């Protein structure tokens, strides 16, 4: 018998009597899906927050936040940067990126997480090889908590989906918190509404369609 069939046969023979699957509530009563709640959670997790620039110049904002950055690589047309993502042949070529820029699909107020997938990264490694990451987030696209987040259809469609919450971190030596363990040293969320033109183009085609969106 193949390993597969042998394992399945043994599992089937040994499974205890069936127990029911409970329904899972959304646990959202009285919880805010607000930008303020998102900010508080993000800050707690070591993330940074920046207001949108009054003049709408996001490239200038990135230069202002990271004056020493040599390579800025953006996966969103809203920021030009100075390195075209399309130039990278292999993911490893993004190793010299100082600042990566992406637009998140939505945020989670409970945890301060942002939802990203291969469609937003262009090259997934941008979110991990870059020294710093700037994430644009539409303040109208914040869900209350992780229950809401996991009702997003994006998890069914994306090859790769990630909830990023602040920078890469470790406390593996004596519990001392270090930001920038293997991945990004900092994560800055900028609250910027999705431009109307991009909305029409379906930038957010996989946003929750089942009415769980709030805020």
């Amino acid at each position, binding site marked *: 018998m*193949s*390993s*597969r069939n*042998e*394992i*399945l046969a*043994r*599992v089937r023979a*040994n*499974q*205890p009597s*069936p*127990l029911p*699957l*409970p329904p*899972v509530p959304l*646990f959202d009563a009285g919880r805010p899906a607000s930008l303020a709640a998102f900010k508080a*959670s993000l800050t*707690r*997790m070591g993330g940074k927050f920046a207001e949108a620039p009054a003049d709408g110049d996001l490239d200038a904002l990135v230069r202002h936040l990271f004056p020493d950055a040599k390579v800025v690589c953006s996966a969103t047309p809203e920021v030009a940067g100075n390195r075209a993502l399309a130039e990278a042949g292999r*993911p*490893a070529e993004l190793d010299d990126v100082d600042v990566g820029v992406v637009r998140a699909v939505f945020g989670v107020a*409970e945890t*301060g*997480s942002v939802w990203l997938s291969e469609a937003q990264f262009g090259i*997934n*490694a941008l979110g*991990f*090889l870059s020294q710093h990451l700037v994430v644009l987030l539409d303040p109208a696209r914040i869900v209350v*908590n*992780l*229950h809401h*987040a*996991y*009702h997003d259809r994006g*998890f069914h469609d*994306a*090859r*790769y989906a*990630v*909830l*990023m*919450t*602040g*920078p*890469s*971190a*470790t*406390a*593996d*030596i*004596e*519990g*001392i918190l*270090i930001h*920038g*363990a*293997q*991945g*990004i040293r900092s994560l800055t969320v900028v609250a910027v509404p999705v431009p109307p033109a991009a909305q029409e183009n379906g930038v957010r085609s996989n946003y929750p369609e089942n009415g769980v969106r709030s805020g």
Partner: protein
Amino acid sequence: MKRIDHAEASSKFIKAKDHIDFHDKRLWDLRQKRDRESESLPEWQELRTLASQIKEHTLTHLAGYLEEFERNAQKNGAIVHWARDAAEHNQLVFDLLHTRGARMLVKAKSMLTEECEMREFLGPRGIEVIETDLGERIQQLDNEPPSHIVVPAVHKLRTDVAAVFARTLGTDPANSDVHYLAESQRQTTRPHFLAAEAGMIGANFAVAETGTVVVCTNEGNADLSMNLPSLQIASIGIEKMIPRIEHLGVFIRMLSRNALGSPITQITSHFRAPRPGTEMHIILVDNGRSERLGMADFWYSLKCIRCGACMNTCPVYRRSGGLSYGATYSGPIGVIIDPTFNLRKYAALPFASTLNGSCSNVCPVRINIHEQIYKWRQVISERGQLPMVKKNGMKLAGRILASPRLYRAAIGAAGTGIEYLPNFMMYNRMNAWGKQREVPVTPPTTFRQWYLANRGKKGKKK
């Protein structure tokens, strides 16, 4: 095969006072952070019940969910393999790497690959395995297994890490600054990420509905391991299944809160399908799990989501260190899992517990850990696997406690002093428990002496 002597193994760790004091404090700190974080959620107890019920439902329908997972993973373009045991798993991994000419494997932390001793298998066959989690890397470079399932090097102080890194990575042996050490690991690991032909992850959860593999890390090393190389491998214990994506809401809300006291891990990653032009392989591993599923008293241990909270709260674990258990899984959860792998080898482990029940109280999936520890003791005793000293001590204690006459004689009704029983029970050479502990001061008279003096033989008040 040598039996593990937990008490003996822990004595070395206990002697290093700086280490044990810090270990105890650090893990208790995690426990307190966990308390604060869980108490901030009014639905915490309800989440525990839901998590337990979802896991119990899945395990009692496991064959169906495994088939559903396989079907969906294949539909996504992943290639699914099955491994009966560690040997088959390791061979599968080797064949995948070897046939593609891959010489280096960057990997995220996985207790399953520890259980399979995969590095030990691949190393001599010409595959360089790079652990990329900081704690796990420290342990790999020091030729030690992880001592904790979440914080692998928690038993080491910064000076220990400085010594290991100086020896293996060429860092300054005199510099034990934690930022310097962590940065050194980052700088020396990055080239491996860029060069490796293959990457590997374990799994925190595997979702049947979508064929998704979910990994929770703080470092982002799983994402670097999977998003750079052209060959990606995920090794998954078959008990990691959950039915649907929406169930992640329950588990992800609890996992890091219970493990580290943070609301979520910094990076929660969902791998559903390979990147275009690359390969993703998933290995579903049994290695004793299907057998455990058939153990009426013990199958509940398969609900475990490896948060490590039972270890952090356990007074025995905190004061003996994970390595003293001599097994992949240590602490309370290890004590109930390890004997399923080898009853004789791990017969001493269920006795490394005070049965205080704290492990069960902090378990996010409501595993009755302390009850299972007690049941393992019964199994071990019934199967004649009690270590000799325990057996003799128990027999003697049993005879004395069963006979009022012997008991009174032993506790010194004849005036030899009440300390006699505790001394005899506690401080003999055979009882490891007495070694680092003082029994409380005993009262001047026994209860029986007091009763006879105050109530008389007939029980009437004098």
